[in-house]
Each structure stands twice: as C-alpha cells, then as structure tokens.
C-alpha cells in the first residue's frame, strides 16, 4: 500500500471581508518532496501556507496531513497533528523573552522532554546544523535578520517534523545570507528527509530548493510543474514575474 501524500489540498477557498483570497486550490505534496510556491505579493501564498497547518480555517475545501483531514477539527484536536509539521514564519516569531537556547529547546520541553542533558545535546546539534554554535545565550533582539532565520529554523528542525513550511525564508536578507539559507533548506531536506513547502518570491531560492513549483496568481494555481518548465514557459504572466517586469514606465504622461 502506498503511503498517503504528506500534504494534500482539495478545492481550498478563502474569502475574507468579501475578498476572495484563495479560489479553489488543489495540490499534493509527496513525502520528501520540496514544493516552492511563488507568486506576487498579495497573491495568497502566506494565507495558503497557514491553511496547511490549520492556523486559518478555509471558507470551503479540504486539507489533509498524512491522510488526516484537518479542516473542521477543533484547536485542541489539531495540536498533536501540528507537531508533525514545523513552520518557519516570515518574521521568525522567536519568543523575545527567551534566549536562543531556550527558543530552540522550547519544542522539546513542550513535547515532555525533561532531561536537561538530552535537551542541551539536541539543541547543540540543531544549532550546529544552522551554524549558530556559540550564540546560545543571546536574546533575539541581539541577533541579525539572518541569525534570527537560522534560530527559527533550528527551532523547527529540533522537533524532527515530517514536513517543514517556510514562509518567505529569504525575505529581507542580503544575497549572501539568502544563499546560505537556501543551502540550509536543501541540507536539512537531504539530512532529515523532510518534506518542504517554501513560499517565496525569490527566484534564486526557488531555483535552489525546488523539486516542483506552483505559481499562485489571484488566489489560484496558474502553473504547476518543474522549475525548468517554469523557466521555459512563454506565458507572459510567468515571464513578467521571472523577469520582474511591472509594466510601469518611468515617463509621465502629458495631457
């Protein structure tokens, strides 16, 4: 019997204050696969990501995590399911009052681990994976943007989730740090074999990590396929996105 896909979405729609954010999304992500969701700002990428882990409820449609339907489940019923899926937030969402070590140890502690040595060893390993050894006692406020992303990533991987959702992992970072984050995502996927879903509008990030790419436009999937197929597409909308063309001009119109 073949295992169910890690994540699947069917007919997902979301309407907020009369505005249609998602318009019938159908998607499947296999075990160990990396799907990159790209699209312009406001196309519904982050909203869709939050639906995948039940942080938002859809207007209609279904979401399955490893074959289990999560739409309609109460918050408390969702909690154990969410422990199999990690999420890295766009703003990192590190707990301000906790040090780096405490932030990374948090999922372990909440999972019931009380052995201090075991926690310390796992935290050290996670920080080593993201190249942040030696920064354990720093508070998030004293970290750079790139370091915060790494801590957020360490906090996700320390719990060994089956799947990781990344919301704009390279947003606001310089090209060098962005490149190191891209390598990190790939390294984590290879090392732990996790399924990854990456929301981004950074084409370099997509090129680096994607097995498959979904191009979201006005709340619907406009393109789905391999990254090379996306790049080869002659579709003007996709071409404009890849080339970063807005269609605006520098000259003022007269008259």
């Amino acid at each position, binding site marked *: 019997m073949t295992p169910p896909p890690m994540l699947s979405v069917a007919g997902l729609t979301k309407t907020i204050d009369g505005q249609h954010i998602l318009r019938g999304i159908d998607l499947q992500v296999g075990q160990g696969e990396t799907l990159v969701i790209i699209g312009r700002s406001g196309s519904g990428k982050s909203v869709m990501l939050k639906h995948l882990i039940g942080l938002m409820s859809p207007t209609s449609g279904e979401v399955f995590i490893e074959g289990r339907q999560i739409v309609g489940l109460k*918050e408390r019923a969702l*909690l154990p399911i*969410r422990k199999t*899926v*990690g999420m890295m937030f766009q703003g990192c969402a590190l707990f301000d009052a906790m040090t780096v070590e405490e932030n990374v140890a948090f999922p372990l502690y909440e999972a019931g681990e009380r052995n201090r040595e075991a926690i310390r060893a796992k935290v050290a390993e996670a920080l080593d994976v993201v190249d942040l050894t030696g920064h354990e006692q720093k508070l998030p406020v004293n970290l750079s943007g790139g370091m915060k992303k790494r801590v957020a990533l360490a906090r996700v991987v320390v719990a060994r989730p089956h799947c990781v959702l990344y919301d704009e992992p390279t947003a606001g970072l310089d090209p060098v740090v962005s490149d190191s984050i891209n390598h990190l995502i790939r390294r984590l996927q290879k090392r732990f074999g996790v399924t990854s879903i990456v929301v981004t509008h950074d084409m370099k990030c997509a090129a680096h990590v994607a097995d498959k790419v979904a191009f979201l436009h006005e709340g619907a999937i406009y393109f789905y396929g391999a990254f090379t197929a996306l790049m080869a597409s002659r579709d003007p909308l996709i071409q404009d996105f890849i080339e970063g063309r807005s269609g605006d001009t520098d000259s003022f119109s007269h008259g």
Partner: protein
Amino acid sequence: MLLLRFIGSTALSLFSYLGELLFLMLESVRSLVTTPVRWRLALRQILEVGFRSQLVVLVTGAFTGAVFAAQTYFQFHRLSMETAVGAVVAVSMFRELGPVLTGLMVAGRVGAAMSAEIGTMKVTEQLDALRAMGVHPVDYLVVPRLIAMMISMPILVGECVGIGIAAGQFVAVRLMGVPEVYYVTYMLKFTALRDLEMALTKGFFFGVLIVFVACNEGLKAKEGAVGVGRATTDAVVMGSLLILILNFFLTMVLNIFFPAGI
C-alpha cells in the same frame, strides 16, 4: 429609531464581549482539568504579578487608610465619636476599599502588562508559532497567569487592608490623639473573621476577572502597534469598570455568607 439602533448595537456588543470572556473562561477551566499545569510559568507570574505589585498596593492601602481615618475623625470629632474611627476604617478597608483599590491598581499595573505582552505576541506571530508547535495559547499564556492571580490577589488584598488599618491607626492615635485603647477595642468589636473572608473572596474574584479581561484583549489584538495600544487601554478601562460593577454584585451576594455588623 436611531436611539433604538444605538441601544441595540450597544447591547449586542456587550453580549458579544461577555461571550468572549465566557468562552475564554470555559477554555481555561478545560485546560486546568485536562492539561498539566506549567508550574514554572505560574511561579514566574506570581513573582511578576504578585511580588512586584506589592509596593503599589501597599502605598495605595497606606494612604487610603490614612486619609480615610483623618476624614472620619474630622466628622466624628464634632459628635464626640472619634473612638469609633478605628471600627469605621477597619470595616471599610476589609469590606470595600481594600479589595476594590487593590483590584483597580492591579488592573492598571498587571492587566496592562498582560494584554500588552500577549497582544505583542499576537501581532508578531508568536501566538501562531505556539499553535504551530502544538501548544494551545490558553494553556501556555492564560492558565499560568490565572493561577498566579488566584494566589496573589487575596494576599495583596490582605496586605492592602492590613497596612490601611495600620496607617489609619497611626493617623488617628498618633496625629489626632484618639486614645489607643478605645480605638483598638471598638475596631475589634465591630470587625470579625467574616470581614477578612469577604475581603479575600472579593480579591480572588477580581484577580480572575483581571486575567480574563487582560488576556482576552491581548489574544484578540490586531493591526500592529496601534492594536496592541488599544488592547492595553481596553484591558485597563474594561478591567476597572468590571471590577466596580462586579463589586456591587459580590457585595450583595457575599453579604449573605459573610453578613455585616456584629
């Protein structure tokens, strides 16, 4: 028509607000019953909301007791009833002033801090991060604060009442010259253990109310810094108003269990 619509929408908002509080209360009770309590967080909150509120509460209690004793003396002196000042101050501090003033001060200090902290966590996605890691925000944020307030508030009320009575005695006896023997005798004659029980019971309920109002405002905060500011203001204003309203009903109900008078 306009007036009717205004009354209707106000009533609707009130019921909706009370519904939010009730929902949070039920979720907290459910958490207390079904989920292990995070005692480390609760202890940290006792330090934060209880221990660190003492100065504010003690100053409030001391000066309220002192000024109340002085005013009572000024009135009673004309009637040659100054020996009754101790009884009036003690009964008032126990039954009304101690619990209400402690409640209002804690609503300002602790309620504001709670709603600001939780509200900031909400708008910076830290609450979503908690949920994404399989942790219910009520279990992690509300219940430890609830336990801390249930323990701390009666103690704070006790301190406020105690120092209020002591300050009142100092003013009446040392500054106004009321004979200490009469002052203490009448105070003890007109107060009983039930007055202390009423004070502590009120403190307990006010503590619970402050937590739910503050946490509810924090949990529903939105729209960034402006939203957090609004949540903080609402937590203090609603917390203070509801304490005054609840105090009336508590006084009526608790007087059945702890009747006033000799």
